[in-house]
């Protein structure tokens, strides 16, 4: 039983570390802020969550200690990281960070059509 739970928590921790690693590769490789944000906000969320879950299971099964703070940590990461991703995205857009040149569509441009300060967005072309 202890061996099985050690294996499971070891697997979860390894998976979390690999996911975080690949998310950071994504931040390096992808072309613009917006696509990088995809990698960072999704990969890191599940990565950190499975790391914490592995730690929780290890302490529960091997040490017999129920650590509720780790569970709360999982819940907080799960709730806050999509919001953080959204806010970074929005802040980037509103400060006119250009989209990648191969981006094809931008419906948000129409929303800001009445506002001359926000329409002059560099390097975005509509289809």
């Amino acid at each position, binding site marked *: 039983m202890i061996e099985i739970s050690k294996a499971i928590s070891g697997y979860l921790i390894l998976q979390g570390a690999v996911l975080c690693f690949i998310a950071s590769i994504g931040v390096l490789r992808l072309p613009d802020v917006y696509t990088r944000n995809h990698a960072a906000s999704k990969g890191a969320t*599940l990565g950190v969550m499975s790391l914490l879950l592995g730690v929780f299971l290890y302490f529960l099964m091997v040490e017999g200690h129920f650590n509720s703070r780790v569970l709360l940590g999982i819940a907080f990461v799960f709730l806050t990281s999509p919001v953080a991703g959204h806010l970074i995205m929005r802040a980037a857009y509103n400060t006119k960070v250009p989209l990648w040149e191969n981006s*094809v*569509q931008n*419906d948000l441009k129409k929303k800001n059509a009445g506002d001359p300060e926000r329409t002059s967005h560099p390097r975005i072309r509509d289809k």
Partner: protein
Amino acid sequence: MAFQVLLNVFIAFMWMFLQNSYTLSVFAAGFLFGLLIIFIMRRSFSSRFYFLNVLAVFTLFTIFIKELILANLSVLKVILSPVFSHTPGIFAYETELKKDWEITMLSNLITLTPGTLVVDISDDKKTLYIHAMDINDAEEARKEIRDSFEKAIKEVSR
């Protein structure tokens, strides 16, 4: 709905007082008993039987977890593919949801969906602007949001 939960807790306390034993197991038994009573009396409440809402919350949570895992797999595929050959873009999505918390839940769900991330919400709260990793999937993503997420969220708030 909150009224029904409160009533259920109240019945559980009544049960504890009737039994004259104040333990968690008696409370749980009273709670189940109260659930049965509320189920029988469900036609006298203005809202529906609240346990259905609890089930809907559970469904929504499973959708969250499932989408999170699928999103990660698709992001992994994009990152580890040798050439980045997608066409990102921003598309608009008209939502039918009205309340603020529903829109928040929807945008959290969209952010955790494969290949989509919310950029902005229009001032009248009717349109979400979503950045998609691959704009060719936008139509499919739109359909999935409409059929699966909005329905699940509506089910919770009904």
